[in-house]
């Protein structure tokens, strides 16, 4: 069959070329299946081991091992508080920055400085954020180990994500809309508020959702700034333990593998839900830009 096909080319030469191709092709398939296998393994392993230990009691009760209470309700609450405060602080700043970068800034030193700073922020590892948060918010500003210290630290951490994602969505608004509004005599601010932001809203939401994912998953920075007490927080000045920190403590101290699995599964489920939201929204953006 092959000899018939390959008329006119030395058979040996062709053979060598084809073998190289074959080897590379095998490598591509092999490595892809390794990746896929490992990733599926992790997901299934965590979920299948964790899901049986998740029940209403686990989610709704407090954590007091001495009374044999192992619930994660305080951790859920602390996580929620930190997410909320961080989003409340970081989102407006991030959106305003993005608006400035897309709509107002002119190329120059200031702009490249802002870009450089954003890049740098996204490159700093979370343990450094934790260290900084501890030195600055916890000690220097006397905010103690508290949800607020944690949230402030995380706000800086998620700022680059919010800025960049919002920027992308602002840029994707068709220029014709903007021109249309300006041509009607609307001011720049009106155009931004009434035309550009509404068009970019799903992108901004994506930014927020991605940030929530990062906050929920963060351990090192929260651990050093918000502490790890297991009480139910009553104010933002209280110290608190997020779900990720809880998993870390359970695993580190070898307290209980069942609780660890269950907490890990809860985290995976939360992240899955967050991703689902983000993808759905991103699809919305695509449709919008194609349709527009």
């Amino acid at each position, binding site marked *: 069959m092959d000899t018939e096909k*390959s*008329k*006119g080319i030395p058979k040996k030469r062709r053979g060598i070329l084809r073998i190289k191709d074959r080897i590379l092709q095998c490598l591509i398939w092999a490595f892809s299946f390794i990746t896929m296998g490992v990733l599926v393994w992790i997901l299934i392993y965590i979920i299948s081991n964790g899901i049986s230990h998740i029940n209403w009691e686990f989610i709704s009760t407090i954590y007091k091992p001495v009374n044999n209470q192992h619930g994660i309700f305080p951790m859920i609450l602390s996580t929620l508080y930190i997410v909320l405060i961080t989003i409340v602080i970081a989102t407006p700043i991030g959106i305003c920055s993005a608006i400035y970068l897309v709509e107002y800034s002119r190329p120059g030193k200031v702009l490249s400085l802002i870009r450089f700073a954003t890049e740098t922020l996204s490159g700093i590892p979370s343990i450094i954020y934790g260290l900084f948060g501890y030195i600055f918010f916890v000690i220097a500003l006397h905010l103690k180990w508290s949800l607020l210290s944690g949230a402030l630290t995380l706000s800086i951490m998620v700022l680059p994500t919010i800025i960049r994602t919002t920027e992308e969505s602002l840029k994707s608004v068709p220029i014709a809309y903007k021109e249309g509004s300006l041509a009607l005599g609307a001011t720049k601010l009106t155009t931004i508020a009434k035309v550009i932001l509404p068009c970019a809203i799903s992108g901004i939401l994506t930014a927020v959702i991605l940030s929530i994912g990062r906050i929920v998953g963060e351990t090192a920075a929260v651990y050093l700034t918000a502490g790890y007490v297991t009480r139910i927080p009553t104010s933002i000045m209280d110290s608190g333990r997020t779900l990720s920190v809880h998993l870390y403590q359970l695993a580190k101290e070898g307290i209980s593998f069942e609780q660890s699995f269950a907490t890990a599964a809860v985290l995976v489920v939360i992240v899955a839900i967050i991703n689902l939201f983000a993808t759905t929204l991103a699809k919305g953006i695509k449709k919008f830009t194609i349709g527009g």
Partner: protein
Amino acid sequence: MNSSELKIYTHNLELFYGDAQALKNININIDEKKVTALIGPSGCGKSTFLKTLNRMNDLIPNVKITGDVYFDGLNVYKEYDIVELRKKVGMVFQKPNPFPMSVYDNVAYGPRIHGIKSKSKLDEIVEKSLVNSALWDEVKDRLKKNALGLSGGQQQRLCIARVLAVEPEVVLMDEPTSALDPISTLKIEDLMDQLKEKYTIVIVTHNMQQAGRISDKTAFFLHGEIVEYDFTEKIFSNPTDKRTEDYITGRFG
């Protein structure tokens, strides 16, 4: 025009994109070492037809092809190895598409993937191909520079050089000058005139004058069919079909 060797011919060739028929019952004989022009309004199937000759349509999902294409007497879709076919039937695209690498590497790309490793041999091929594509004098001092820095016309001639470097027998050109300025266009037309001494050229063009200037034979496509195929002089001076006449006199298209 006297008798020529037959290089490519098709038999009842039909092509479908999903349910839409793009080519209907194409039967055409393409002569060796001649320039054959394919003209017709947009969407008439001329580019699609061109791509059946080196099987570039294979890249598009949902394409179904029936009928046969013969190259040197062998069935392109049944008896030919696709790599071997594309080596013998080179293609120049509408928009110049040099790879983002140096001028030298662009031209040497083909020979290299076909297994030539010797530096001196490659040097020789690169120079010869660039000379043949009338680009050598303009780029001989910047062979190591990125090809994307060349002008549009130079890029297109580089793409021609890249095709010549694999020593094809046929060169397919899909509107090779439509993205270029008039001066670059003239250079490429001159080049085609020289190339037909060695190569069989099939060119799709929107530009009627171009077809008239450079081709020996012209096929007029309409709605996926060949309306008329004849010597260029005949097509342009005395077309048989009313629709051909309407098209070349600019009444539609």
